[in-house]
Structures are given as C-alpha cells and as structure tokens.
C-alpha cells in the first residue's frame, strides 16, 4: 500500500459497515482495491438503474431528490434536488450535460478520491440516474489530473459499464441513451468552481462565468448542464433505493440535514483518514476517532472543511458538522474534512501558506482576487519575517473584507479571505508579533522603499 493510499484511508472495516447506514462506503473492500463491475453487480449495484429508468418519470426522481435534500457535498451545500429541478429541460430545450466535479483540490480534502478509486461504479450509477432525471445526453467526469489511480479506475469502470450495457444506447431496455467520458484536468484549483470547470472542459481558459445564467440554464456548450460533486452523486442510488425518508433519518437528531457524510481528519492528529458518519457528527467525535492530537500536542484551531473555510477554536468542537450549524459560526462546513492545528504551529505561517496557494490558483479574471491575494501573501510573509509595519494587520483585514462575497467574480477570493479573517480575529497577537518594533530613532519609511519581497 502506497503512502498516498494511506492518506485517504477509511477507518471503518467492512464488517462495521452496513448498506443502510453507510450508503457510500458499504461497497468498499477492506483491501482498498477497486470494486469491479462483477463485484458491484453482485452487491446489487446498478439495481437502482434498472428500478428507476423507464419506471419513474424524471420529475418523480427529482421530487425524491428534493425531499431527500442531499446538500452539495463539494462544499456549496446547495440541494442537489433543487439544482436538478432548476435545470432546463423539455420539448423545446436541447438535451444538456451532466458533469461530475471530481476536481478535488481543496487543501485538506481527500474524500472523493476514496470513492473514485474504490467505488467508481457507484459514481457511474449515480450519474446515470442524474442524467436520466435531467434528460442529459452525455456525462463528463472532470477529474483532478493528479488522481492517476482514480483515472485508471474510472476508465476501467466506464469500459466495463459500457460493455455490460449500463452505458450507451437504450440502457437497461429503458430507451434512455447516456454515456460518460472521463476528462482529466490540467491542474488548476479554480476548475473546482463549476463554471470554470465547464470552461476548462470546453477547452477554454478556466475562468469562472458570470451567474446568472446558471449552468442549468446555459452550461457546457451553452446547453443546460448539471454539475454535482462525486460524493453528492454517490448518494443518489441509495436515496432512490431506500427513499427520501430513510435518507433524512440517517442523521437522526444530530442535524437538520439528512444522510451520511464522508468526514475526514488531517493535520496534527494521531490518526488521519476518513469515516462515513451521519451528518451532524461533531468535530469532537472525529477528533476522538482520530485518536486525539499527535505527540501530546494540544489543539489550537481547526478548519472545518478545507483551506477555504474559516478557522474555528477548540470551543467549537461540540458543534454539529453540518452546513447550517457551522455556517452560524461565520465559517463554512466546506467539504467536512477537518484540519487540525496544534498549539506549536504558527498561524501566520499557516495562513501565509494557504494564501499563497489561493493567490497562485487565482484565475486572474477579477481584480480583488488577482491583485489582492498576492498582496496579502506579501504582507503575511513580511509579518512572518518580523518585517511587518504598523497598519499591516488592518490592511490585511481590509483586503479580506474587500474579497468578500459579491465583491469578487466568484467564490475563490471569499474562500481565501475566510481563513485569513478568522485567523486574525482569533489569533491577532500572533500577527502583531510580526510587526517590527522600531527603536525610538528609527523612522518607519512610508513609501515603497523596502525590498522585502515575496
């Protein structure tokens, strides 16, 4: 088992998992190998396709999805059913596309990878159902280019499914035609933004598009397009098999949201990895499952779901990890894979590292993101080196404020601003320590004289 494989390891053994409780990971093998077509079908895979196609109308499928309220697992949290319902379809509308967003590049996030590498048929089944519900003519899986193992698994799965008639013309005798192609990305974080993803898929610069119109109105090649995350789509077969009520019930009293969530832990934990748990599980429980902090460190802060979410404190560990609860703290659930920060880690360095990533991954379309983020990085680096100047922290706050939602073209810069603003809010003293304290005779130059450079 490679080191890479280890990082996205699921810490629940096969015997601990039940289909009714673990609709995503029940299919997985203990040895971590890909579940092939035969094994998948033997476990009753693709049964839902047979059960739904031709027996339920697309709008009935969408109604079930709406009732189940699968909230977008890529981090947006938007109801997949509602999204499908808003996607234009009908007599006078050209058939569009269903796109699976598998461009998993959020810092600290490795959940989709598990499903892609080990249960590709589950994704294909979800996509066939999604394609049917949305009257899509074709499906694309936009995969992060570095996910080489996943690319192999999906390619193989598509071949198997096509050979077995699960893809192609007249699927399962239903009269529904649908096929899927794999597209491997060239390595831009912004391709995770659904409209930038579509542009990239079309072969254009990976710049996000203005919304409205939303992809459901005019997406890939101008056709109605649904973009869903891997985990979202992998929930679809079970929802259609067991119903919306069952799905809603999975989380019990923990959360208003339904279903399970592939949670994960990274950072200075004793044991990093993944767990499929009912949505609304607390971060505290995740920390326990991860065996607490590593090497006797203590927890200073944590990110609830990737680099573009705001920092939370140990006092927030008891909160349910769901979209609304975490949203109320000013942060976001994001992908739900928490990143733990130990007390001996520098927040300034950590945030600088994150912001450097976001600055580099800016597509360069809108001004606050393109020119604001690199400035943020340079200010943070100055603070990190003890070369900060009075006013730098206020300037950082101003920059974070100006990168807020609505001010930028897409959610990239607001995502970048979240960890920065929250880190300054909770750990201002660490930032202040980066400001050079000039002696009495030193005059801090006002002009652009310093050569300190990023």
């Amino acid at each position: 088992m490679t080191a890479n494989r280890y990082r996205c390891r699921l810490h629940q053994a096969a015997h601990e998992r039940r289909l009714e409780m673990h609709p995503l990971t029940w299919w997985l093998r203990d040895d971590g190998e890909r579940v092939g077509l035969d094994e998948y079908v033997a476990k009753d895979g693709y049964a839902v396709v047979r059960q739904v196609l031709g027996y339920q109308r697309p709008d009935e499928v969408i109604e079930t999805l709406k009732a189940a309220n699968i909230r977008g697992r890529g981090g947006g949290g938007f109801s997949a059913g509602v999204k499908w319902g808003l996607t234009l379809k009908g007599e006078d509308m050209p058939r569009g596309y269903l796109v699976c967003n598998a461009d998993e590049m959020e810092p600290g996030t490795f959940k989709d990878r598990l499903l892609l590498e080990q249960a590709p048929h589950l994704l294909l089944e979800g996509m066939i159902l999604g394609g049917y519900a949305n009257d899509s003519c074709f499906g694309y899986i936009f995969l992060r280019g570095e996910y080489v193992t996943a690319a192999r698994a999906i390619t193989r799965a598509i071949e198997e499914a096509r050979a077995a008639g699960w893809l192609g013309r007249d699927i399962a005798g239903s009269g529904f035609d649908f096929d899927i192609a794999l597209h491997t990305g060239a390595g831009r974080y912004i391709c995770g933004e659904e409209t930038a993803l579509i542009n990239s898929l079309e072969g254009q610069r990976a710049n996000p598009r203005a919304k409205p119109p939303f992809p459901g109105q005019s997406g890939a090649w101008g056709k109605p397009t649904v973009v869903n995350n891997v985990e979202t789509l992998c929930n679809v077969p079970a929802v259609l098999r067991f119903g919306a009520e069952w799905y809603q019930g999975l989380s019990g009293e923990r959360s208003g949201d339904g279903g399970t969530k592939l949670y994960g832990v990274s950072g200075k934990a004793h044991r990093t990895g993944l767990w499929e748990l009912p949505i609304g599980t607390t971060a505290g429980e995740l920390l326990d499952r991860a065996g607490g902090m590593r090497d006797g460190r203590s927890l200073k802060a944590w990110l609830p779901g990737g680099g573009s979410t705001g920092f939370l404190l140990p006092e927030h560990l008891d909160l349910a990890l769901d979209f609304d609860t975490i949203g109320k703290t000013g942060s976001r659930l994001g992908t739900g894979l928490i990143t733990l920060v130990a007390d001996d880690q520098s927040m300034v360095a950590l945030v600088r590292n994150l912001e450097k990533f976001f600055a580099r991954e800016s597509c360069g379309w809108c001004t606050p993101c393109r020119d604001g983020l690199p400035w943020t990085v340079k200010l943070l680096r100055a603070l990190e080196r003890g070369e900060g100047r009075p006013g730098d922290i206020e300037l950082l706050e101003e920059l974070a404020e100006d990168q807020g939602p609505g001010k930028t073209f897409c959610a990239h810069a607001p995502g970048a601003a979240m960890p920065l603003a929250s880190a300054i809010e909770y750990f201002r003293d660490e930032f202040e320590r980066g400001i050079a304290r000039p002696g009495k005779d030193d005059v801090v130059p006002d002009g652009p004289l310093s050569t300190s450079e990023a």
Partner: protein
Amino acid sequence: MATIQVDGRSYEVDGKDNLLQACLTLGFDLPYFCWHPALGSVGACRQCAVKQYRDADDTQGALVMACMVPAADGSRISIEDEQAREFRASVIEWLMVHHPHDCPVCEEGGHCHLQDMTVMTGHSRRRYRFRKRTHRNQYLGPFIAHEMNRCITCYRCVRFYRDYAGGEDLGAFGANDNVYFGRHREGVLENEFSGNLTEVCPTGVFTDRTHSERYTRKWDLQFAPSVCHQCSVGCNISPGERYGDIRRIENRYHGEVNRFFLCDRGRFGYGYVNRDDRPRRPEWHGETEETVTLDVDEALDRGADALREARRVIGIGSPRASLESNDQLRELVGQANFSTGIAEREQVCLTRMRRLNRDAGLPTPTLRDVESHDAILVLGEDLIQSAARLGLSVRQAVLARRERLAEARGIPAWNAEAVMTLAQDARHPLFVAYPTATGLDDVADRCLRQAPDDIARLGFAVAHAIDVKAPAVEGIDESTKATAEHIAETLLAAKRPLVISGGSLESTAIIEASGNIARALATRGRRGGLMLVRREANSTGVELLGSRPLEWALDELTRGAADAVVVLENDLHQRLPSGRVERALSAARTVIVLDHQRTSIWERADLGLPAASFAEGDGTLVSLEGRAQRFFQVFEPRYHRPETRIHQGWRWLQALRASLKRRAVPDVTLDAVTRDCARHHPALAGIVEASPSADQRVSGLKLARQPHRYSGRTAMRAHLDVSEPRPPQDPDTPFTFSMEGYYGFDRPRREVPFAWAPGWNSPQAWNKFTDEVGGHLRGGDPGVRLLEPTEDIGDYVNEIPPPFTSGVGEWQVVVLPRLFGGEETSSRATPIMARAAAVRLHLSEEDARRLEAEEGDTLVVETSLTRLSLPLRVDTTLPSGLVGVPAGLEAALVTGDRAWLSLAPEGEEEPP
C-alpha cells in the same frame, strides 16, 4: 423604459440596459474598465461597484457591479455610498499594484482612461511596498507598440481582437497576477483592425507606433473633424497635428458609420501627408529650364497664360478629391471638357451602382444598420480588403444571432460572455461568392470560390429563385441551381436580408445580378438592404457629377482635339496603362497638375500646383452609403512652414479661373464653392446641409480645434520669428486654429474636432457626446444621405454572362483589392508599406502543377498590354483558370483580361 433611483432621485432609463450603461447615459461619472459600449459587460474589473437596495426599507444594501445588473424598473442604487466609493478606490489601488506609474514617459498619458479613472476615484497614495511583477514586451509590427507592464488586466484587448474583430493571434496567457496579453510569439499582428487596440486598451499597453517617433500629447495636438480618404466607407476621423505634421489619427465617433472603430489603413495610412517630398510650392517644369518653384501669383499667371494659349482645355477630375475641387475644375474647363478621371470600366460600374441605389427597391443601410440584418449575401467583394470597416460591421451582423438567441432565453445582449456561451457558433447566415478566400470566410455559411462571370450567374440564379419573373440563367448546372435556391430561401426567410456587392471585380454583370436580387426581394415585400461598394473616398460623389471617363479625356488629347489638360489630384498611371497616359500627355502642349503628392504625373507636368491633402483642406465627399460628409482643414500649413503655398484644389482652380479671365482673385470660401457645386448638380443639392456653415457659433463662440490645455503656442514658432503672429484665421469653417473657442460637451454639436469632457480625456469621452452610450451624437450624426431609393422598382436586367471556361494555355486575370498597398495615397505611407504583404501571383494548385511551378517560383504573366514577372503563391481556394494579381501593382492588368503564364527563364527573377 424603466424608472430607477440613483442616490435618492428618480430617472427614466432604458430597461434593456445594465446599470452602468444607464448611469453613464444619465451623465453620472461612474468609473469602469472592462465594460465597453461595443463589447458589453463581463464583470472582470469590479470597478463600477455601486450599492444596490432591495426596496425602500433596505438600508443596508449590497455592493453590486453596475455593469452586470439590469437597469430593471424600480432599481434603487447609490453611487455615492461610502462603502461603494471606498471599494472603487480599492479596485484602482489593486490595479495599480504592478502598474509602473510611468505616465511622464507613457504615450497614453493625457488620453488615458486609467489616469482618468484613478483621478475619479481619488486613489492618490500608494500603500503597496513590495516588488512589482514585470513582463517582457513584444514586437507587434509597424502599427502597434507593446508595453505589458502597464497592463491592468481588463481583458478588453482580447475581447475586441478575438470576439469582435475575429483575430486569432492575440491571446491571454498565464494566470493569477501574471496574465500576459500578446502573441504566442513576437510578430506582426495579423488582424486588419489592430489599431483599435490603442483606443480599446484603457492604458498604455497598446499604443500607436506611427505616432511614437514624433510624439505629442493629446492636449498639444490640433484636431479637426475629418473623414477618412482611404476608401469609400467614409469613416469619421480626428487627425491630430503638431508642427505642421499629422501625428496620429483617432476615431471620431459617428453613430451611424464607424462608431468606435476604424480599420488599420484608415488609422495608419496618413503618412503621405507628412512626406518630405511633397510638393509644397508651385513648380514650373519647362522644357528648357530647370524646375523652378514659383509664388502663387506667378504660378497663376503662367498657368493662365498657358491655358489662354490653348485651343481647348481638358479637365481631369478625381475620385479622391473633394466634390468642390472637382466642380471647380469643371467650372474652369466647362462641362463639355470635363472628365471624372475614372477609368471607363470602373465608371460604368459606378453608374450602374448609383442607378441601383435609386431603383432596385431596397435602401442602402448605414454601417450601424448593416449590423441589424439577419442574412447577408456578398457577391464579388472581399470586404475586409475593399471596404474593411464595412466588413467589420458584416461580422457583427452575422454574430448578432447570438444576441437574438440569448434574448429569447432571458440573457441580456450586454452580458457578453453569457451570450457567447449560450449561442456557441450560432450565426446569421452569410454567403460569400468571390474568386478566392476572403476575410469573412471564418463566419460565413458558405464560401463560393468562383470566377467573376460565375459569381454573376449565381447572383442572377438567386434572383430568379426569389422571383420567377427575374430572368433565369440558361444552362445552369444542378449544384449551382441548388446553391442559388438555398441562398434564395435563406434570404427570403430572413427578417432583413442584405445584399452586398460592388465594383471590386469591375463586373457590371455582378452588380446587375445583385440589383436583380434586390428587386426580387423588394418585389416579394422584404425589408432588406442593398450595399454597393465603391473603390475610393469620393467615387460615389464624382460619378454623380455625371461626366465622361478618363479614356475619353486621353483620347481627346491624343487625337489633338485638345491641347491642354488640367489634372486634379489623380495619378493617371494608377488607372490606365502608362503608354496610353503618356501618349495623351505628350500630345498636350500644356499639362497642369494639382496634387499633394509627387506623383509620376506631377513630375512631367508643365505646371504643378500644390494642393491640400485632407489635412490642409476642406471639402465634401460622398461615401458608398451615399452620405455626403464634410472634412475640415486640420491645420494651416503656412503657420509652421511659411514658405509653403499649399491650397485646396478648389481654391487654386477658382483663382486660376479668375486669372484666366484677367479678374482679381476673389476671396472665395468653402461655403460658397459648396453652394456652387450644389447648385450646378441637382443630385448634389443636399450637400450644403452636410455640415454647419462657417457662421455656426456655440454660445457665441467659434469651435476650438485645440484642446484648452494646448501648450507652447507662444514658443513653437520662436525659431522662425520671436514675435508670435496672430493665429491663422479660417474663413471656411466654424473652427478656430486656436484653443480659443467652444470645446465642451454639454451643448450638442454635430462636428466635434476632439472629444473631451471634464474628467474624461480618453476616447471614452465620446460617451459624453452621445444621446446614450453607443447611440447617436446628441447634435446629430454628421452628413446627409443623397441616394435614397425611389418608389419605382426598375425592370430586371438580363445581362447574364456565359459560364466561365478556362481556355487552354490562357488564364483570366482577377485583380484582388488589398487593404495594405492597394490604394494610391496610403501606399505612400511608410507603415503601410511595411505592413503590406509581398506581392504574389495567385494561382490554383492545379494550374501551378500544370506549369510545373512551385510556391515562390517566378512566373511571367503576359497580356496584350503588359508583361510582368512575380513570385507564385499557390492559392488553394482559387478556381483553376484564374490568375490573381494584387491591386495597385500595374494598371494595365485588368480583371477579365486574357493572360498567358510561363515560368520565368533562369536569371529573370525581378524582385517585385
């Protein structure tokens, strides 16, 4: 209409606009970068942020980008809101992070949108203290200079170049704060409209290289409202002068013609005005004497004496000279002795075109109106080469289908990227029939590469397919018939079909075919248009003078029926074979030439009178649209070069006439000669109204040619004279050669020398002069249209040529117009010469094979009149049996001529 509230006050706006358009139309100063009236909104720069409130109870509001929000009825916004103001200042601060602040040495300085917006937002202190990102610049050819460090990444350049103008060799490269706008590697920008980058770019990344060598700030240039003389489209321009030279040409907004954009020939082809070898004083080339330069009176005396001695004087006019000059020449020699100076084959086409403009039942659209036609057939024109700006409008018409589709799905036309996404490559149908590939093929439905006669046959077949009463084409083959029927159906299905043809191939059959199509469409009740392309700036106007062609004039001289000739601004060698021209001139005892160029005719004239170019003179031109437009003198040449004796052609001719009659030379004015011309020619009666007369005043003032910040007036002549003379007076126009006079934007006026409004120094200032952004000048768009169709539709013409067949061992010549190098005056401008492609003979692959010739081999082309050797270009689009010859090379080669080709013997490899 919609009512919106801006900072508490209600306004009526066009609800189809976005909030930024609405605010600018209302006159608010709201800063922006990535939005452009012709390019729409993309929401990239975030500069136009305003606060929007949901309703009267919403006190919080939220920032929105005005360019991306519809100006919906009931919208409530605040421009002045503190948060919005601060955010807009921040945006400028970010844009300026990497900007070099090199305004003092930047050629955009003084007409820079970035400067204007920076001042507007109040960003004045720099807080960024780190190192700036820098770029390497590229060589982009003779027209455009590149300085990427100034870039603020608004994406306008690529959006204009690629999305609007169809260029492919300028792109955005890289990402994050390292986006690079340039070519994939250094080299000449290929698109014919690249010059617009200098105005589309809001800062100094793309600047006018032709201006660079002798650079002057906009505020130090003297401008006049002028009209481009480089083709027949009639684009409005603002030439800028300093020290007696034209330094640059700026676009002058005309709501119905060029609007925001010019072609590169028009923008960069002015260099002939500044040539050192220009005749600036009258010259006498006697047979025995050396060349003597004369003063005005002496020249007039000698000229008058020579003409007095002549038995009969022929006057040869010019389609590149003003109506007034041509008319004054006609007055001098008399109607019976006046020729248009246009070769017969061209003039026949011009006459046919003029008649069709009147009796083909369809009106000629303006360029703006061209853009609202939804099916276009182009017969026998490569518009990008022969009338480039019209070609750009045709491109927009074809692309406009995207907006129609988007509107049907609730996506507003201004939402540029969304419109393109939705519609993908949907286009309005465009059919182009031309012997070889054209500049619009990339957006055409069908490109039909045919010989001129076959193009005409196709056209006649289309007319017949639209209306069976139109004559049928005998012996038409099935595939042509099917094509014609498809085109006919498409034109009939369109709401507004447009037929474009012209004289480029000098085929009356093609022109009449387009006329038949127009008549057929009109008969079937279609609201379409007919656009006929002429060659030169005043071809349409001079044809309206109704005189005989050049051949007649030459024949009169050759056969001795006349013994003196006055040639007006016309290098006859460019029009007819040199031998024929020479025989005629040799037969004449007296040759008087008026021109602003030292042409071959000038060199052999007895008397040369230095005429004004468009820069030193005024006059009226009639464009292909039939629009009479006045161009005005930009500067007085004697102010900086006191020795010069340059005058308008009409002024010389008026004076010559007076001298001839031994009268005192009268004080003639432009208005008087314009009125004369209108009186003499009923068809031109309207030209008096083409512009305000010299007595126009705004707020009691004449209009200033110079910006109010014009500097150096007291010093710029100090090397000539320590005392500053009174500025030259201008009896001909309402403009002053001074900064004194009205220059504002708030009082509507038609003729605007330069656009400036407080806070708006860049070309974006035009938005202050229009009734709505991208609309019409508030004072009315300049010019008056002369050629409207009459009620009566003429009869169908039945002049269908037989199909083209290539003879064995012989070819048919096709002269191919060239934007760069194919026009008489601009070809004398250095940057145009540098930009012109090497001249080649075009031959089909099959024919090249038959001659056993390969690309680059020298071929000899022989006709009954001339012999020429040129390198071969194998043209995979040209039909076999044709040989394409670039225009402007040899007047003896005429479309339709028979030619014989052979490989040049070893050693005979003349460089072109």
